[in-house]
Protein backbone atom coordinates (compact mmCIF):
# COMPACT_ATOMS: atom_id res chain seq x y z
CA UNK A 1 0.00 0.00 0.00
CA UNK A 2 1.56 3.24 -1.06
CA UNK A 3 1.68 6.28 1.20
CA UNK A 4 -0.05 9.45 0.03
CA UNK A 5 -1.28 12.44 1.98
CA UNK A 6 -2.00 16.02 1.06
CA UNK A 7 -2.91 18.96 3.26
CA UNK A 8 -3.99 22.54 2.92
CA UNK A 9 -2.93 24.58 5.94
CA UNK A 10 -4.68 27.93 6.19
CA UNK A 11 -5.05 30.84 8.59
CA UNK A 12 -4.46 34.54 9.12
CA UNK A 13 -1.12 35.95 8.09
CA UNK A 14 0.97 35.86 11.28
CA UNK A 15 -0.48 32.61 12.65
CA UNK A 16 2.59 30.74 11.49
CA UNK A 17 0.85 28.75 8.77
CA UNK A 18 3.86 28.71 6.44
CA UNK A 19 6.11 27.48 9.25
CA UNK A 20 3.67 24.62 9.94
CA UNK A 21 3.84 23.67 6.28
CA UNK A 22 7.62 23.74 6.06
CA UNK A 23 8.03 21.84 9.34
CA UNK A 24 5.60 19.16 8.16
CA UNK A 25 7.43 18.98 4.83
CA UNK A 26 10.94 18.81 6.31
CA UNK A 27 9.72 16.11 8.73
CA UNK A 28 8.49 14.13 5.73
CA UNK A 29 11.88 14.56 4.05
CA UNK A 30 13.59 13.37 7.23
CA UNK A 31 11.27 10.33 7.16
CA UNK A 32 12.68 9.52 3.69
CA UNK A 33 9.41 10.37 1.95
CA UNK A 34 8.89 12.46 -1.16
CA UNK A 35 7.38 15.86 -0.38
CA UNK A 36 6.39 19.15 -1.98
CA UNK A 37 5.39 22.41 -0.31
CA UNK A 38 3.93 25.42 -2.07
CA UNK A 39 2.84 28.67 -0.47
CA UNK A 40 -0.08 30.55 -1.94
CA UNK A 41 0.82 34.16 -2.23
CA UNK A 42 -0.60 37.14 -4.03
CA UNK A 43 -3.38 39.44 -2.93
CA UNK A 44 -4.33 36.95 -0.22
CA UNK A 45 -1.00 37.47 1.51
CA UNK A 46 -1.86 41.05 2.28
CA UNK A 47 -4.18 41.01 5.26
CA UNK A 48 -6.42 38.08 4.38
CA UNK A 49 -5.79 34.38 4.71
CA UNK A 50 -2.44 32.74 4.10
CA UNK A 51 -2.26 29.15 3.01
CA UNK A 52 0.09 26.50 1.82
CA UNK A 53 -0.21 23.01 0.39
CA UNK A 54 1.95 20.05 1.43
CA UNK A 55 1.95 16.76 -0.50
CA UNK A 56 3.65 13.72 1.02
CA UNK A 57 4.16 10.36 -0.69
CA UNK A 58 6.50 7.40 -0.95
CA UNK A 59 6.33 7.80 -4.74
CA UNK A 60 7.30 10.61 -7.09
CA UNK A 61 4.90 13.52 -6.59
CA UNK A 62 3.13 14.99 -9.60
CA UNK A 63 1.14 18.08 -8.77
CA UNK A 64 2.24 20.27 -5.84
CA UNK A 65 -1.11 22.09 -6.13
CA UNK A 66 -4.25 20.35 -4.93
CA UNK A 67 -7.76 21.63 -5.43
CA UNK A 68 -9.59 19.02 -3.32
CA UNK A 69 -7.36 18.04 -0.38
CA UNK A 70 -7.60 14.93 1.79
CA UNK A 71 -6.89 16.99 4.91
CA UNK A 72 -7.27 20.58 6.06
CA UNK A 73 -5.93 22.55 9.01
CA UNK A 74 -8.16 25.60 9.47
CA UNK A 75 -6.61 28.07 11.90
CA UNK A 76 -9.46 30.59 11.55
CA UNK A 77 -13.01 30.93 10.31
CA UNK A 78 -12.38 32.35 6.80
CA UNK A 79 -10.04 29.40 6.13
CA UNK A 80 -12.67 26.87 7.19
CA UNK A 81 -15.32 28.57 5.07
CA UNK A 82 -13.07 28.72 2.04
CA UNK A 83 -11.54 25.25 2.10
CA UNK A 84 -13.94 22.94 4.00
CA UNK A 85 -16.25 22.55 0.98
CA UNK A 86 -13.25 21.40 -1.06
CA UNK A 87 -12.09 18.68 1.34
CA UNK A 88 -12.72 15.20 -0.04
CA UNK A 89 -15.51 13.14 1.50
CA UNK A 90 -14.44 11.55 4.79
CA UNK A 91 -11.35 13.81 4.81
CA UNK A 92 -9.79 15.15 8.00
CA UNK A 93 -10.51 18.73 9.06
CA UNK A 94 -8.60 20.05 12.05
CA UNK A 95 -10.28 23.18 13.37
CA UNK A 96 -8.91 25.82 15.70
CA UNK A 97 -11.91 25.76 18.04
CA UNK A 98 -10.53 28.74 19.98
CA UNK A 99 -11.58 30.90 17.04
CA UNK A 100 -14.20 28.88 15.14
CA UNK A 101 -17.74 27.98 16.25
CA UNK A 102 -18.29 24.19 16.23
CA UNK A 103 -21.61 24.49 14.34
CA UNK A 104 -19.75 25.63 11.20
CA UNK A 105 -18.40 22.13 10.71
CA UNK A 106 -19.68 19.94 7.91
CA UNK A 107 -19.97 17.02 10.34
CA UNK A 108 -21.69 14.37 8.25
CA UNK A 109 -19.33 14.63 5.28
CA UNK A 110 -15.90 15.12 6.81
CA UNK A 111 -14.10 13.96 9.96
CA UNK A 112 -13.80 17.05 12.17
CA UNK A 113 -11.34 17.50 15.03
CA UNK A 114 -11.91 20.52 17.25
CA UNK A 115 -8.80 21.58 19.11
CA UNK A 116 -8.59 24.91 21.00
CA UNK A 117 -5.03 25.53 19.87
CA UNK A 118 -4.94 29.19 20.93
CA UNK A 119 -6.09 28.35 24.47
CA UNK A 120 -3.57 25.52 24.77
CA UNK A 121 -0.82 27.82 23.52
CA UNK A 122 -1.75 30.50 26.04
CA UNK A 123 -1.67 27.87 28.82
CA UNK A 124 1.85 27.02 27.64
CA UNK A 125 2.75 30.69 28.01
CA UNK A 126 2.76 32.00 24.43
CA UNK A 127 -0.11 32.41 21.98
CA UNK A 128 2.36 32.22 19.10
CA UNK A 129 2.83 28.50 19.81
CA UNK A 130 -0.71 27.83 18.52
CA UNK A 131 0.64 26.68 15.17
CA UNK A 132 2.82 24.03 16.81
CA UNK A 133 -0.09 22.81 18.96
CA UNK A 134 -2.11 22.39 15.77
CA UNK A 135 0.68 20.57 13.95
CA UNK A 136 1.19 18.22 16.90
CA UNK A 137 -2.52 17.41 16.82
CA UNK A 138 -2.42 16.96 13.03
CA UNK A 139 0.40 14.42 12.98
CA UNK A 140 -1.25 12.47 15.79
CA UNK A 141 -4.59 12.34 13.90
CA UNK A 142 -3.14 11.38 10.52
CA UNK A 143 -0.16 9.32 11.68
CA UNK A 144 1.60 10.39 8.48
CA UNK A 145 4.80 11.39 10.34
CA UNK A 146 6.10 10.36 13.75
CA UNK A 147 5.87 13.20 16.30
CA UNK A 148 9.48 12.49 17.31
CA UNK A 149 10.65 13.26 13.75
CA UNK A 150 8.70 16.54 13.75
CA UNK A 151 10.34 17.51 17.04
CA UNK A 152 13.78 16.59 15.68
CA UNK A 153 13.15 18.63 12.52
CA UNK A 154 12.30 21.81 14.46
CA UNK A 155 15.92 22.93 14.52
CA UNK A 156 16.06 22.78 10.70
CA UNK A 157 13.16 25.16 10.09
CA UNK A 158 13.42 27.53 13.03
CA UNK A 159 16.11 30.18 12.47
CA UNK A 160 19.12 29.78 14.74
CA UNK A 161 18.44 33.03 16.56
CA UNK A 162 15.24 31.45 17.91
CA UNK A 163 16.80 28.14 18.95
CA UNK A 164 16.37 29.05 22.61
CA UNK A 165 12.65 28.53 21.92
CA UNK A 166 13.03 24.94 20.65
CA UNK A 167 11.94 23.48 23.99
CA UNK A 168 8.79 25.62 24.00
CA UNK A 169 7.94 24.51 20.48
CA UNK A 170 8.54 20.89 21.43
CA UNK A 171 6.15 21.19 24.39
CA UNK A 172 3.53 22.77 22.10
CA UNK A 173 3.79 19.93 19.57
CA UNK A 174 3.45 17.39 22.40
CA UNK A 175 0.50 19.26 23.90
CA UNK A 176 -1.35 19.17 20.58
CA UNK A 177 -0.77 15.45 20.22
CA UNK A 178 -1.82 14.84 23.85
CA UNK A 179 -5.05 16.78 23.30
CA UNK A 180 -6.00 14.42 20.47
CA UNK A 181 -5.20 11.34 22.57
CA UNK A 182 -7.29 12.72 25.40
CA UNK A 183 -10.24 14.08 23.40
CA UNK A 184 -10.39 11.49 20.61
CA UNK A 185 -9.07 8.34 22.31
CA UNK A 186 -10.52 6.03 19.68
CA UNK A 187 -8.90 8.03 16.89
CA UNK A 188 -12.08 10.07 16.30
Amino acid at each position, binding site marked *: MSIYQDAIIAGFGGQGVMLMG*TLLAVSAMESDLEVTYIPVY*GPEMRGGTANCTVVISDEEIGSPIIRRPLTLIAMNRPSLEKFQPLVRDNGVVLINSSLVEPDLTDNGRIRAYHVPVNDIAVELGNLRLANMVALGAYVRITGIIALEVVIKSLSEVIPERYHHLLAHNTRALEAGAAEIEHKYPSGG
Partner: protein
Amino acid sequence: MSKLFVKGNEAIARGALDAGCSCYFGYPITPQNEIPEFMSKALPETGGQFVQAESEIAAANMLLGAGACGIRAMTSSSSPGISLKQEAISYMAGSDLPGVIVNISRGGPGLGDIGPSQGDYFQAVKGGGHGDYRQLVLAPGTVQEAYDLTMLAFDLAFAYRNPVMILGDAIIGQMMEPIRLIRREAQDREESESWRLEGYAGRKPRVIKSLRLAEGTLGKHNEHLQQKYLTARRECRHEEFMTDDAELIVVAFGSIGRIAKSTIRRLRQKGYRVGLLRPITLFPFPSQALQDLAEKGKRFLTIEHNMGQMVEDVRLALCGLAPCGFYGHLPGNLPTPDDFEGSILKEFASEA
Protein backbone atom coordinates in the same frame (compact mmCIF):
# COMPACT_ATOMS: atom_id res chain seq x y z
CA MET B 1 25.39 14.10 0.81
CA SER B 2 22.28 14.88 2.83
CA LYS B 3 19.22 16.54 1.39
CA LEU B 4 18.26 20.20 1.55
CA PHE B 5 14.69 21.48 1.52
CA VAL B 6 14.67 24.58 -0.67
CA LYS B 7 12.59 26.70 -3.03
CA GLY B 8 13.10 26.30 -6.76
CA ASN B 9 14.58 29.79 -6.85
CA GLU B 10 17.18 28.87 -4.24
CA ALA B 11 17.94 25.63 -6.09
CA ILE B 12 18.71 27.67 -9.23
CA ALA B 13 21.00 29.98 -7.27
CA ARG B 14 22.77 26.99 -5.67
CA GLY B 15 23.06 25.26 -9.04
CA ALA B 16 24.72 28.36 -10.46
CA LEU B 17 27.19 28.56 -7.57
CA ASP B 18 28.03 24.87 -7.82
CA ALA B 19 28.57 25.27 -11.57
CA GLY B 20 31.22 27.90 -10.91
CA CYS B 21 29.14 31.04 -11.43
CA SER B 22 31.14 33.89 -9.97
CA CYS B 23 29.11 36.91 -11.12
CA TYR B 24 25.44 37.71 -10.78
CA PHE B 25 23.72 40.83 -12.11
CA GLY B 26 20.05 41.51 -11.54
CA TYR B 27 17.21 43.80 -10.66
CA PRO B 28 14.41 42.73 -8.28
CA ILE B 29 11.04 41.42 -9.50
CA THR B 30 8.52 38.90 -8.13
CA PRO B 31 8.43 35.86 -8.26
CA GLN B 32 12.20 35.33 -8.60
CA ASN B 33 13.56 37.49 -5.78
CA GLU B 34 14.98 34.55 -3.81
CA ILE B 35 17.62 34.17 -6.54
CA PRO B 36 19.25 37.61 -6.07
CA GLU B 37 18.60 37.36 -2.32
CA PHE B 38 20.60 34.14 -2.11
CA MET B 39 23.31 35.34 -4.50
CA SER B 40 23.76 38.65 -2.64
CA LYS B 41 24.97 36.69 0.38
CA ALA B 42 26.60 33.65 -1.21
CA LEU B 43 28.68 35.30 -3.94
CA PRO B 44 30.63 37.77 -1.78
CA GLU B 45 31.32 34.88 0.64
CA THR B 46 32.90 32.82 -2.14
CA GLY B 47 34.90 35.65 -3.68
CA GLY B 48 32.40 36.38 -6.46
CA GLN B 49 30.60 39.55 -7.44
CA PHE B 50 26.95 40.42 -6.86
CA VAL B 51 25.63 43.54 -8.53
CA GLN B 52 22.14 44.90 -8.11
CA ALA B 53 22.06 46.85 -11.34
CA GLU B 54 20.19 50.08 -12.00
CA SER B 55 17.91 48.27 -14.43
CA GLU B 56 17.34 44.94 -16.19
CA ILE B 57 18.95 46.39 -19.31
CA ALA B 58 22.11 47.22 -17.39
CA ALA B 59 22.15 43.77 -15.75
CA ALA B 60 21.89 41.99 -19.11
CA ASN B 61 24.72 44.09 -20.57
CA MET B 62 26.86 43.27 -17.53
CA LEU B 63 26.21 39.60 -18.33
CA LEU B 64 27.47 40.27 -21.85
CA GLY B 65 30.59 41.89 -20.46
CA ALA B 66 31.30 39.05 -18.04
CA GLY B 67 30.75 36.52 -20.84
CA ALA B 68 33.26 38.36 -23.02
CA CYS B 69 35.82 37.89 -20.24
CA GLY B 70 35.05 34.16 -20.11
CA ILE B 71 33.43 34.46 -16.68
CA ARG B 72 30.63 32.09 -15.70
CA ALA B 73 27.88 34.60 -14.97
CA MET B 74 24.11 34.75 -14.62
CA THR B 75 21.21 37.16 -14.60
CA SER B 76 17.63 36.42 -13.60
CA SER B 77 14.30 38.15 -13.82
CA SER B 78 10.63 37.55 -14.51
CA SER B 79 8.68 38.15 -17.71
CA PRO B 80 8.55 41.98 -18.02
CA GLY B 81 12.17 42.18 -16.90
CA ILE B 82 13.19 39.49 -19.38
CA SER B 83 11.67 41.57 -22.18
CA LEU B 84 14.06 44.37 -21.23
CA LYS B 85 17.04 42.02 -21.49
CA GLN B 86 16.34 40.94 -25.06
CA GLU B 87 18.60 43.45 -26.80
CA ALA B 88 21.64 42.27 -24.86
CA ILE B 89 20.74 38.60 -25.45
CA SER B 90 20.64 39.26 -29.20
CA TYR B 91 24.06 40.96 -28.97
CA MET B 92 25.41 37.99 -26.99
CA ALA B 93 24.08 35.55 -29.58
CA GLY B 94 25.56 37.70 -32.33
CA SER B 95 28.93 37.83 -30.55
CA ASP B 96 29.10 34.09 -29.69
CA LEU B 97 29.04 34.84 -25.98
CA PRO B 98 28.04 32.47 -23.17
CA GLY B 99 25.74 33.48 -20.34
CA VAL B 100 22.85 32.10 -18.31
CA ILE B 101 19.53 33.93 -18.13
CA VAL B 102 16.80 32.76 -15.76
CA ASN B 103 13.16 33.61 -16.43
CA ILE B 104 10.82 32.71 -13.55
CA SER B 105 7.91 33.78 -15.66
CA ARG B 106 4.65 35.34 -14.51
CA GLY B 107 1.30 36.13 -16.07
CA GLY B 108 1.18 38.60 -18.95
CA PRO B 109 1.07 40.39 -21.26
CA GLY B 110 2.40 43.66 -19.86
CA LEU B 111 2.71 43.68 -16.08
CA GLY B 112 0.13 40.87 -15.93
CA ASP B 113 0.21 39.42 -12.42
CA ILE B 114 2.74 37.71 -10.16
CA GLY B 115 1.27 34.23 -10.52
CA PRO B 116 2.47 31.38 -12.73
CA SER B 117 2.12 31.33 -16.52
CA GLN B 118 3.89 29.84 -19.54
CA GLY B 119 3.18 32.83 -21.75
CA ASP B 120 6.87 33.43 -22.48
CA TYR B 121 7.42 30.21 -24.46
CA PHE B 122 7.57 31.97 -27.83
CA GLN B 123 9.89 34.68 -26.51
CA ALA B 124 12.23 32.06 -25.04
CA VAL B 125 12.44 29.57 -27.92
CA LYS B 126 11.99 31.69 -31.02
CA GLY B 127 14.60 34.32 -30.20
CA GLY B 128 13.01 37.13 -28.17
CA GLY B 129 15.29 39.84 -29.51
CA HIS B 130 16.09 40.95 -33.04
CA GLY B 131 17.98 38.99 -35.66
CA ASP B 132 18.15 35.36 -36.68
CA TYR B 133 19.37 33.75 -33.49
CA ARG B 134 18.40 31.13 -30.93
CA GLN B 135 19.18 30.48 -27.31
CA LEU B 136 19.15 27.06 -25.69
CA VAL B 137 16.15 26.78 -23.35
CA LEU B 138 15.86 24.39 -20.39
CA ALA B 139 12.55 23.93 -18.57
CA PRO B 140 12.79 22.33 -15.10
CA GLY B 141 9.78 20.43 -13.72
CA THR B 142 11.09 19.79 -10.20
CA VAL B 143 13.26 21.65 -7.71
CA GLN B 144 16.02 19.05 -8.18
CA GLU B 145 15.84 19.65 -11.91
CA ALA B 146 16.01 23.41 -11.33
CA TYR B 147 19.36 22.77 -9.63
CA ASP B 148 20.65 20.19 -12.12
CA LEU B 149 19.60 22.09 -15.25
CA THR B 150 21.15 25.33 -14.00
CA MET B 151 24.46 23.50 -13.71
CA LEU B 152 23.94 22.10 -17.20
CA ALA B 153 23.06 25.57 -18.50
CA PHE B 154 26.54 26.87 -17.67
CA ASP B 155 28.22 23.90 -19.36
CA LEU B 156 26.08 24.34 -22.48
CA ALA B 157 26.59 28.11 -22.57
CA PHE B 158 30.36 27.61 -22.70
CA ALA B 159 30.30 24.53 -24.92
CA TYR B 160 28.30 26.42 -27.56
CA ARG B 161 29.36 29.98 -26.68
CA ASN B 162 25.70 30.92 -26.63
CA PRO B 163 23.12 32.33 -24.21
CA VAL B 164 21.18 29.63 -22.36
CA MET B 165 17.85 30.31 -20.67
CA ILE B 166 16.27 28.53 -17.72
CA LEU B 167 12.51 28.93 -18.23
CA GLY B 168 10.56 28.32 -15.02
CA ASP B 169 7.42 29.85 -13.61
CA ALA B 170 6.08 31.02 -10.25
CA ILE B 171 5.28 27.38 -9.35
CA ILE B 172 8.82 26.11 -9.95
CA GLY B 173 10.31 29.22 -8.34
CA GLN B 174 8.18 29.23 -5.20
CA MET B 175 7.63 25.54 -4.43
CA MET B 176 9.93 23.71 -2.03
CA GLU B 177 11.26 20.17 -2.44
CA PRO B 178 14.22 18.21 -1.14
CA ILE B 179 17.32 18.36 -3.34
CA ARG B 180 20.70 16.68 -3.36
CA LEU B 181 23.68 18.88 -4.15
CA ILE B 182 26.51 17.86 -6.44
CA ARG B 183 29.89 19.14 -5.34
CA ARG B 184 32.13 20.06 -8.24
CA GLU B 185 35.77 20.85 -8.59
CA ALA B 186 36.44 24.55 -9.01
CA GLN B 187 35.86 25.57 -12.63
CA ASP B 188 39.12 25.93 -14.56
CA ARG B 189 39.50 28.85 -16.93
CA GLU B 190 40.56 26.66 -19.84
CA GLU B 191 37.12 26.62 -21.45
CA SER B 192 37.43 30.24 -22.58
CA GLU B 193 41.20 30.43 -23.05
CA SER B 194 41.11 30.68 -26.85
CA TRP B 195 38.71 33.62 -27.12
CA ARG B 196 38.13 35.60 -23.94
CA LEU B 197 39.22 39.21 -23.44
CA GLU B 198 41.80 39.66 -20.71
CA GLY B 199 44.40 42.09 -22.03
CA TYR B 200 46.48 41.14 -25.06
CA ALA B 201 50.01 41.50 -23.69
CA GLY B 202 52.23 39.04 -25.55
CA ARG B 203 49.71 38.04 -28.22
CA LYS B 204 47.47 39.38 -30.99
CA PRO B 205 44.52 41.49 -29.79
CA ARG B 206 41.07 39.85 -29.89
CA VAL B 207 37.83 41.49 -30.93
CA ILE B 208 34.40 40.38 -29.74
CA LYS B 209 31.53 42.14 -31.53
CA SER B 210 28.26 41.57 -33.32
CA LEU B 211 28.75 44.27 -35.98
CA ARG B 212 29.83 42.73 -39.30
CA LEU B 213 29.98 45.25 -42.14
CA ALA B 214 32.61 43.79 -44.45
CA GLU B 215 31.12 42.16 -47.51
CA GLY B 216 30.15 38.54 -46.95
CA THR B 217 31.04 38.46 -43.27
CA LEU B 218 27.50 38.70 -41.88
CA GLY B 219 26.22 35.95 -44.14
CA LYS B 220 29.09 33.73 -43.14
CA HIS B 221 28.47 34.46 -39.47
CA ASN B 222 24.79 33.60 -39.80
CA GLU B 223 25.75 30.33 -41.45
CA HIS B 224 28.06 29.60 -38.53
CA LEU B 225 25.23 30.33 -36.07
CA GLN B 226 22.79 28.05 -37.88
CA GLN B 227 25.40 25.29 -37.88
CA LYS B 228 25.78 25.77 -34.13
CA TYR B 229 22.01 25.44 -33.56
CA LEU B 230 21.98 22.31 -35.71
CA THR B 231 24.81 20.78 -33.68
CA ALA B 232 22.97 21.68 -30.47
CA ARG B 233 20.19 19.27 -31.44
CA ARG B 234 22.17 16.51 -29.74
CA GLU B 235 21.37 18.22 -26.42
CA CYS B 236 17.66 17.33 -26.72
CA ARG B 237 16.19 16.05 -23.48
CA HIS B 238 12.71 14.91 -22.56
CA GLU B 239 10.88 12.67 -20.10
CA GLU B 240 8.38 10.01 -21.10
CA PHE B 241 5.86 8.67 -18.60
CA MET B 242 3.64 5.65 -19.36
CA THR B 243 3.91 6.16 -23.12
CA ASP B 244 4.49 2.50 -24.11
CA ASP B 245 0.89 1.34 -24.22
CA ALA B 246 -0.69 4.81 -24.33
CA GLU B 247 -3.22 5.72 -27.02
CA LEU B 248 -3.08 9.41 -26.15
CA ILE B 249 0.10 11.30 -25.27
CA VAL B 250 -0.15 14.53 -23.29
CA VAL B 251 2.65 16.94 -24.17
CA ALA B 252 3.36 19.48 -21.43
CA PHE B 253 6.47 21.19 -20.06
CA GLY B 254 7.71 22.45 -16.69
CA SER B 255 5.22 22.70 -13.84
CA ILE B 256 2.32 21.83 -16.14
CA GLY B 257 4.09 18.59 -17.12
CA ARG B 258 4.20 17.40 -13.54
CA ILE B 259 0.66 18.53 -12.73
CA ALA B 260 -0.55 16.65 -15.83
CA LYS B 261 1.30 13.60 -14.54
CA SER B 262 -1.05 13.52 -11.52
CA THR B 263 -4.06 13.70 -13.84
CA ILE B 264 -2.62 10.87 -15.94
CA ARG B 265 -2.07 8.65 -12.89
CA ARG B 266 -5.68 9.22 -11.87
CA LEU B 267 -7.00 8.44 -15.38
CA ARG B 268 -4.80 5.32 -15.58
CA GLN B 269 -6.61 4.02 -12.47
CA LYS B 270 -9.86 4.47 -14.38
CA GLY B 271 -8.46 2.46 -17.29
CA TYR B 272 -7.58 5.24 -19.73
CA ARG B 273 -4.37 4.57 -21.63
CA VAL B 274 -2.77 8.01 -21.37
CA GLY B 275 0.92 8.90 -21.27
CA LEU B 276 3.06 12.00 -20.97
CA LEU B 277 5.90 13.47 -22.95
CA ARG B 278 7.54 16.34 -21.08
CA PRO B 279 10.07 18.31 -23.12
CA ILE B 280 12.98 19.30 -20.86
CA THR B 281 14.86 21.20 -23.55
CA LEU B 282 12.45 23.53 -25.34
CA PHE B 283 15.17 24.55 -27.78
CA PRO B 284 16.34 22.21 -29.16
CA PHE B 285 12.83 20.73 -29.18
CA PRO B 286 12.43 16.94 -28.82
CA SER B 287 10.81 16.59 -32.25
CA GLN B 288 12.31 13.16 -32.94
CA ALA B 289 10.78 11.66 -29.78
CA LEU B 290 7.36 12.98 -30.84
CA GLN B 291 7.75 11.60 -34.36
CA ASP B 292 8.74 8.19 -32.98
CA LEU B 293 5.57 8.08 -30.88
CA ALA B 294 3.44 9.29 -33.80
CA GLU B 295 4.78 6.50 -35.98
CA LYS B 296 3.52 4.04 -33.36
CA GLY B 297 0.01 5.38 -34.01
CA LYS B 298 -0.43 7.56 -30.95
CA ARG B 299 -2.54 10.70 -30.75
CA PHE B 300 -1.53 13.87 -28.92
CA LEU B 301 -2.88 16.60 -26.68
CA THR B 302 -0.73 19.59 -25.76
CA ILE B 303 -1.50 21.26 -22.43
CA GLU B 304 0.01 24.63 -21.60
CA HIS B 305 -0.48 27.44 -19.13
CA ASN B 306 -1.01 29.87 -22.00
CA MET B 307 -3.28 30.18 -25.00
CA GLY B 308 -1.28 27.91 -27.33
CA GLN B 309 2.44 28.33 -28.03
CA MET B 310 4.40 25.08 -27.69
CA VAL B 311 1.53 23.33 -29.46
CA GLU B 312 2.81 24.93 -32.68
CA ASP B 313 6.17 23.19 -32.24
CA VAL B 314 4.43 19.91 -31.42
CA ARG B 315 2.37 20.14 -34.61
CA LEU B 316 5.47 21.08 -36.63
CA ALA B 317 7.27 18.06 -35.22
CA LEU B 318 4.34 15.74 -35.96
CA CYS B 319 4.13 17.17 -39.48
CA GLY B 320 0.73 15.63 -40.12
CA LEU B 321 1.75 12.17 -38.87
CA ALA B 322 -0.78 12.41 -36.04
CA PRO B 323 -3.37 14.89 -34.79
CA CYS B 324 -2.67 17.08 -31.78
CA GLY B 325 -5.39 18.75 -29.70
CA PHE B 326 -4.82 21.65 -27.32
CA TYR B 327 -5.93 22.73 -23.88
CA GLY B 328 -4.81 26.12 -22.63
CA HIS B 329 -5.12 26.95 -18.95
CA LEU B 330 -5.68 30.68 -18.44
CA PRO B 331 -2.97 32.68 -16.67
CA GLY B 332 -4.19 34.16 -13.40
CA ASN B 333 -5.63 30.78 -12.40
CA LEU B 334 -3.61 28.20 -10.47
CA PRO B 335 -3.64 24.94 -12.44
CA THR B 336 -4.54 21.69 -10.62
CA PRO B 337 -4.79 18.08 -11.87
CA ASP B 338 -8.61 18.45 -11.86
CA ASP B 339 -8.39 21.15 -14.54
CA PHE B 340 -6.83 18.81 -17.11
CA GLU B 341 -9.09 15.80 -16.65
CA GLY B 342 -11.94 17.15 -18.75
CA SER B 343 -9.80 18.09 -21.73
CA ILE B 344 -8.00 14.73 -21.73
CA LEU B 345 -11.31 12.83 -21.59
CA LYS B 346 -12.70 15.02 -24.37
CA GLU B 347 -9.67 14.23 -26.51
CA PHE B 348 -10.26 10.54 -25.88
CA ALA B 349 -13.90 10.83 -26.91
CA SER B 350 -12.98 12.63 -30.13
CA GLU B 351 -11.30 9.48 -31.46
CA ALA B 352 -12.06 9.19 -35.15
